[in-house]
């Protein structure tokens, strides 16, 4: 016979104002199976918890129901109290009579009746609760970092400095990310590469970091503490162990006019190339699509069309027969730091976005985006830092900068603010004026959002010291008129239309998540928002975690971020991971699903509905070892206890510990009866 103790909390006035707690306790005391029922002002307080502990000892309780606030608030508190008195914590449950009763009702009598009902249902459930034991899983003390931009670099270095092993995967030939393309950084105007490249070198020299550049994550299985990650190492056609980075192959390459990705198509590169001189690793890669050797081979020519790089290499490092290789690594935690890409104003757009026909869909050559301006302003860029128009190489005297292109524009498919544009446009106006002293910089803006340390001062400096002209309003149209670009805008402060003959236009296009990141999210079972940014577990309190345990976020893969934010997130994710790695074993809630293999029909509906990829298929063999059936199995390390499989299973062969069908039905019966 059950001996349940019921404890009704007043929560000060929060519950007692609307619910007659004394009457509730009295009513619950008479229920069959209830051995004890009291009310108290603050059950979560030390004296309140002492009441529960005392009752467990005195009345030999077999279960506890605390009728109080939401279990999110204090379930752990009360379960801990029960455990300290020798009662299995999973025999204690809460009935929520605050958020779901007293706070939302006014009629005291009716609310009291409802509170009694809510507690009564839970009593029926607790009668059927069984003791459960916390699951312990071993932890692999290695981390995977996906993405080698500043966020990934920072996360990798912090984890490695904390003593754990790190595998850093970067899909491009070099780490460095977008930060390596920037000229100077706001709000201090310090040179981006000068502060970044030492960090890149630290990565490659760190004994705890294994860098896999030019590699991509193929598949992820497992769960927190025990992921298995399959990584594709793309063929460079250069033997990384033999190459000494001398650059002779690039000098010898005959294909010299490929638009450089690193220079945002403003400069040229060879078919065998390192993206930039400070690349880490400093090992070239052959771009198969443009290489003369591979083109000839694709056409079926027997004779080698080129091979100049192979001849030039003194180390014999060029290997045209290299193929992609795969490695599988076991890691305990994963950091996603895949970064961003820029919105294109062109006509071809991914679903839901529309481009800017009014700006010529990107067909005007001297209309460039922010990253292209960075390359023009950068000393390592295609013009060695001279500001020049892409169309004719002339120095522009009048540059118009447009903020919020794509951002904050629901008509174009993006309603969010890209956060960094106000700052980098202010920086661009300064860089322009520092290089072209008689230049005129005009900025069209919607609002100036300079909310960071030293940020507003920086924008004021652009306006007051460097003479940038800020016009509050939008540009409705621009087209090429001979040598100039006609820019038609509206000054909303003076209420006047503005027409400017510009030599060049810089568009602060919206920040969007990196391409293909949705597929990566699916591999990781992590969720993403309508725009493709990864979802954090809680927007305020768990900003660097995902809903998939063991997968963490850093930088612009989660939302538009600047460098300080990305670095802070990366360090936060690293701290979380080092915390995880500080224990030899992980403790997990035992409320996970399990399959009764004897009655599982093997339909695998559960496999399809599981949001966490926790269901696997196992073979059932007879004594001779012959496979007789294939049934589902739930991996308790991955299962998050959502219960979707249990509700879906047509043969009722899945039970969720702590929430069995019997327990749920007894609650429902108590409501109906």
């Amino acid at each position, binding site marked *: 016979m059950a001996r349940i103790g019921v404890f009704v909390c007043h929560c000060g006035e929060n519950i007692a104002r609307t619910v007659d707690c004394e009457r509730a306790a009295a009513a619950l005391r008479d229920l069959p199976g209830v051995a004890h029922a009291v009310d108290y002002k603050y059950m979560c307080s030390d004296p309140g918890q002492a009441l529960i502990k005392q009752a467990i000892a005195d009345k030999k309780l077999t279960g506890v129901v605390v009728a109080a606030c939401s279990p999110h608030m204090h379930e752990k508190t009360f379960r801990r109290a029960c455990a300290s008195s020798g009662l299995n914590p999973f025999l204690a449950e809460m009935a929520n009579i605050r958020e779901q009763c007293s706070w939302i009702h006014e009629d005291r009598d009716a609310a009291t009746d409802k509170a009694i009902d809510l507690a009564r249902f839970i009593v029926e459930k607790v009668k059927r609760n069984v003791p459960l034991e916390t699951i312990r899983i071993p932890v692999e003390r290695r981390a995977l970092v996906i993405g080698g931009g500043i966020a990934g670099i920072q996360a990798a270095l912090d984890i490695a400095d904390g003593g754990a092993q790190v595998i850093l995967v970067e899909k491009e030939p070099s780490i460095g990310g977008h930060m390596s393309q920037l000229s100077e950084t706001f709000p201090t105007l310090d040179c981006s590469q000068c502060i970044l490249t030492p960090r890149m070198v630290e990565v490659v020299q760190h004994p705890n970091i294994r860098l896999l550049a030019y590699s991509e994550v193929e598949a992820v299985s497992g769960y927190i503490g025990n992921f298995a990650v399959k990584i594709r190492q793309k063929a460079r056609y250069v033997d990384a162990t033999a190459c000494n980075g001398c650059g002779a192959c690039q000098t010898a390459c005959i294909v010299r006019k490929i638009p450089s990705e690193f220079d945002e198509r403003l400069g040229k590169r060879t078919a065998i190339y390192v993206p930039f001189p400070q690349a880490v690793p400093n090992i070239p890669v052959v771009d198969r699509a443009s290489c003369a050797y591979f083109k000839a081979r694709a056409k079926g020519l027997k004779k080698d069309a080129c091979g100049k790089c192979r001849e030039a290499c003194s180390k014999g490092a060029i290997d045209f027969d290299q193929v992609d290789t795969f490695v599988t690594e076991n890691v305990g935690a994963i950091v996603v730091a895949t970064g961003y890409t820029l919105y294109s104003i062109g*006509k071809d757009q991914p679903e839901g976005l529309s481009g*800017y*026909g*009014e700006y010529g869909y990107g067909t005007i050559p001297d209309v460039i985006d922010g990253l292209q301006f960075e390359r023009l302003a950068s000393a390592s860029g295609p013009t060695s830092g001279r500001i020049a128009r892409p169309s004719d190489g002339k120095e522009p005297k009048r540059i118009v900068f447009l903020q919020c292109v794509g951002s904050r524009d629901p008509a174009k498919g993006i309603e969010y603010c890209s956060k960094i544009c106000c700052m980098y446009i202010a920086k661009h106006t300064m860089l322009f004026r520092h290089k072209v002293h008689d230049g005129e910089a005009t900025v069209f803006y919607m609002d100036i959002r300079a909310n960071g340390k030293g940020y507003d001062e920086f924008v004021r400096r652009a306006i007051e010291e460097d003479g940038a002209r800020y016009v509050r309003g939008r540009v409705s*149209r621009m*087209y*090429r008129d001979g040598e100039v670009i*006609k820019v038609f805008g509206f000054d909303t402060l003076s209420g006047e239309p503005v027409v400017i003959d510009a030599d060049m236009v810089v568009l602060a296009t919206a920040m969007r998540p990196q391409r293909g990141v949705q597929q990566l999210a699916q591999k990781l079972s992590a969720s993403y928002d309508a725009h493709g940014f990864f979802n954090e577990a809680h927007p305020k309190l768990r900003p660097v975690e995902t809903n998939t345990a063991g997968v963490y976020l850093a930088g612009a893969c989660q939302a538009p971020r600047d460098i300080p934010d990305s670095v802070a997130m990366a360090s936060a994710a690293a701290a979380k991971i080092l915390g995880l790695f500080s224990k030899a074993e992980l403790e997990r809630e035992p409320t996970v699903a399990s399959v009764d293999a004897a009655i599982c029909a093997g339909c695998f509906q559960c496999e399809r509905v599981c949001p966490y990829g926790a269901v696997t298929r196992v073979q059932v063999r007879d004594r001779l070892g012959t496979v007789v059936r294939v049934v589902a199995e739930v991996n308790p390390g991955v299962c998050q206890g959502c219960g979707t499989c249990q509700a879906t299973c047509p043969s009722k062969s899945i039970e969720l510990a702590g929430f069995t069908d019997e327990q749920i039905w007894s609650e429902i019966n108590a409501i109906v009866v």
Partner: protein
Amino acid sequence: MRFGYFPGCSLHGTAREFDESLRAISGPLDLDLVEIEDWSCCGATSAHATNHLLSVALPARNLALAEAQGHDAVIAPCAACFNRLAGARHQIAADGALAGRMAGLLGRPFANTVAVKNVVDVLRQLGPAIRGKVVKPLAGLKVACYYGCLLVRPAAVCNFDDPEDPAAMEDVVSATGATPVRWNMRLECCGGGFSIPRTGSVIRLGRAIIADARAAGAETIVVACPMCHSNLDFRQSAMALRGEAPMPVLFLSELVGLAFGLDADRLGMGRHYVSTTPLSAFAQNPPPGKEVR
């Protein structure tokens, strides 16, 4: 193809050549244009500037008539009429309460079933048919297609072309054998209804449009809006184009008619203020070097 035909006031008045040329090309294109009996004002300008409900009810009355007269779709050639009719259809479809008031306001049943078609859209879809009927290909004729502000906007209502980079008129012009030019002011404002209250503005705007078309090498401007036509054609003499040759402004249907070898008078081309003779002459005898290759 049978369509309800809503000429509106302009096609019976200032833009009779639009009406005449459309009717002239409808035969070869197998278009059956049936004028809606007892049609009334579409509600442009005065109604939609003063009374929202009236501006929906006026076009709705015409749509209700078309519905009762058995039409599935209505062609409204005038850009303003099209905008009002399509706009009313769009608003009534989106607003259940507004739709509920219509039958009572109109005094007749109305189910909002009639589609509203823009003549440019219809002609573009008839592109292959146009190519098949061309007897005087306008090869080498450089044409500036002028959309003005209204023809393809608002995008949600018009919904037949890109509101910032339309191509429908260019497609039709290409079908006649002529060459559409790429120019900048295709979507600029012509001054619209300000022709009388602020003539100066209309002249200033029109001058810029014509100058840009000329700079792009155009020999004629093609429009599909009576208001644009009136502002660019009728007001052109006041634009004082510094001794430059006048720029003929044609309705799209007139250009198609020329390519079909139809008589210029039948297309109403004698009604223009800027002479269209060079174009009809071009169609009859293409200048040397511009023959079909």
